[in-house]
């Protein structure tokens, strides 16, 4: 029972980290109908930019702001000059090739600039330390991560559900052409959503760095898990990203804790079952293949 409760907390930590990633990936898909395979690279890039920010500015909190801004700006530029050329019709293959190519370029550039050494980022002093929990000490940073993830989910929901911009974004998910017909600059909305999506990946990179460390290859590890989350939760919805992330985070954690030999298998088994029962994911848009 004690072990179960500890693993429940671990599962929440994993789930919240995945949620921040998946929210970005899902937003971008919902808006532009693009599976962004460079999302993992933006996680890693965010982590490394955060690392440099911590080293230069001496503050984890500033890194938390700087990294998403920098990477979000890069995302904005990528959408404006590259991705924009490949919208519409049956151009999924070209989009996948572009974003996968970007992922490869990014991972080489990262290694070129930051080296191939494993790097880690220390949690801020305010959140270091532990709380005794049965036989172990539970790190305060991880508890804070759970709270932060939940707060971010609420914030994103309020933004999408209650603001004018949120309404435009949601309308864009349903029918971008109609939104454009109403006189709204869809191009700007797309670029904005892509920037916010990549900024979320970078945010996850900084927050995750004290837990996952940073090293070459982490980008694709994270990307695969995030895609599983989005597929399970349903493409294009925040709700799907949230519950998908929780489900996969829990499956991953409990799998590792109780049946480690099958833990990777378990994640994909969960995905398979969900897809069998609900082909468009738990909370997916019914007709997502526009």
């Amino acid at each position, binding site marked *: 029972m004690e072990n179960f409760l500890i693993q429940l907390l671990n599962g929440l930590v994993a789930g919240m980290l995945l949620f921040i990633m998946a929210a970005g990936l899902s937003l971008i898909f919902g808006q532009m109908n693009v599976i962004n395979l460079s999302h993992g690279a933006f996680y890693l890039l965010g982590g490394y930019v955060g690392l440099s920010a911590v080293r230069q500015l001496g503050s984890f909190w500033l890194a938390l702001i700087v990294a998403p801004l920098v990477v979000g700006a890069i995302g904005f530029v990528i959408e404006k000059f590259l991705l924009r050329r490949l919208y519409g019709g049956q151009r999924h293959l070209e989009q996948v090739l572009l974003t996968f190519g970007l992922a490869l370029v990014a991972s080489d550039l990262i290694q070129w600039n930051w080296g191939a050494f494993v790097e880690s980022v220390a949690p801020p002093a305010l959140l270091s330390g532990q709380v005794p929990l049965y036989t*172990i000490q539970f790190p305060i940073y991880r508890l804070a991560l759970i709270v932060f993830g939940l707060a971010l989910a609420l914030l994103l929901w309020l933004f999408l559900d209650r603001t004018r911009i949120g309404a435009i974004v949601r309308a864009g998910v349903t029918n971008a052409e109609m939104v454009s017909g109403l006189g709204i600059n869809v191009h700007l909305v797309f670029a904005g959503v892509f920037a916010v999506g990549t900024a979320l990946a970078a945010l996850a990179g900084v927050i995750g760095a004290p837990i996952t460390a940073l090293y070459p290859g982490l980008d694709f590890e994270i990307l695969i898990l995030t895609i599983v989350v989005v597929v399970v939760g349903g493409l294009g919805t925040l709700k799907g990203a949230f519950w998908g992330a929780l489900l996969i985070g829990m499956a991953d954690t409990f799998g590792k804790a109780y049946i*480690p030999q099958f833990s990777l298998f378990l994640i994909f088994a969960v995905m398979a079952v969900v897809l069998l029962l609900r082909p468009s994911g738990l909370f997916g848009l019914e007709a997502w293949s526009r």
Partner: protein
Amino acid sequence: MNRKKSLTVTRRDFLKLAGGTTAALAMPAVLSACGAGASGPLRIGVLLPYSDIYAVLGESITDAMRMYFDEVGNEIAGRQIEIITEDTEISPDVGLQKARKLVEQDEVAFVTGVVSSGVLVGLRDYFHETQKLLICSNAGANELSRGLKTPYIWRTSFTNWMAPWSIGAWAAQNVGTRAAISIPDYAAGENNVTGFSNSYEAAGGEVVMVQRTPFPNMGDPAPFMAELADSGADLVYTFYSGGAAVTFVQAYSDFGLAGQIPLLCAGFMVEEDVLPAQGSAALGTFSTLHWSFVLDNAENNAFKTAFRERTGRDADVFAVQGYDTARVIAEMLNEVGGDTSDTNAMIETLAGISFASPRGPFAIDTNSQAPRHNMYLREVQEVEGTLHNAIMENMGEIVDPGNDSLG
């Protein structure tokens, strides 16, 4: 949209592409025609990871090899040394493909490198059947000195058995008699379980739990911590490398186990490449390895200084192995007078090679086709403001038994 348009290749494009490819493929053959025999440049194939998680190991080994070759003027036994590097990633398939490329296309005299045990095992049959020489500068899979031994693969690095076997008995006598083991679920992990258990149990210890974690992607190790805390063990023995070495050591400290249950490991886990990222979380970790940064001998001091000057970073055990490998290659080539046409003649010289290495006395054991060298018991301490593995004890020479009798 028009899908066809984007995929169309004109006849002219195709001809250009085909012509270019053919020319590129023909070049090495033309070059190699000039380089055959006992004169002309001598081509050495280097198979190492330059991307993915083991990229740092590949870079260390390469830098140190080049450093040695530069020291001897890039010329051995009258022949110019030419290195051709290929990236194996961490994939046995890619490793095999690159080995074929080096041997069949570049026609190298012999091959060196290989970091991952999985890649080494995957290459074994190819080198055995083509009777090409592979001098392995890292991968420690026990099997290559035992059941899968072949005359064509020799090691200048270590076997996976050495570190866990050395620390096992010491742990039972000095730390406690109940041990939990946590290892990645693959061949090298199992080598560590048997090596450690055999010597630990022979010295009166009992292994109470073995935890096998997903490989290669362990992810966040947090879910494994509760089981270790509950195990009732006096110590935890582990073997992780790369990113997992950092996240495991940090989680072990974050979840409060570091102060409770001493952490022991194969020395790679707290080597110089990961120690800065582990930081103070690694303090007090005990390990065994055939080298330490602070090892005080003339060769090591000179090596460390030269490596630092050349690369701007501190040496690690992988650099030492690269340096020793280059030296072994040089001695071998001098023995055969630079004539690489007879692989068996080159192999015969390997058994007699011994010298003073940065790791201490170094010799190649004929039976295991791997080095005999000292093992050092080390503890992570702060040495002059930086974390290093302080040497607690020189445990003396170790040599792989060449069979599974000791684990």
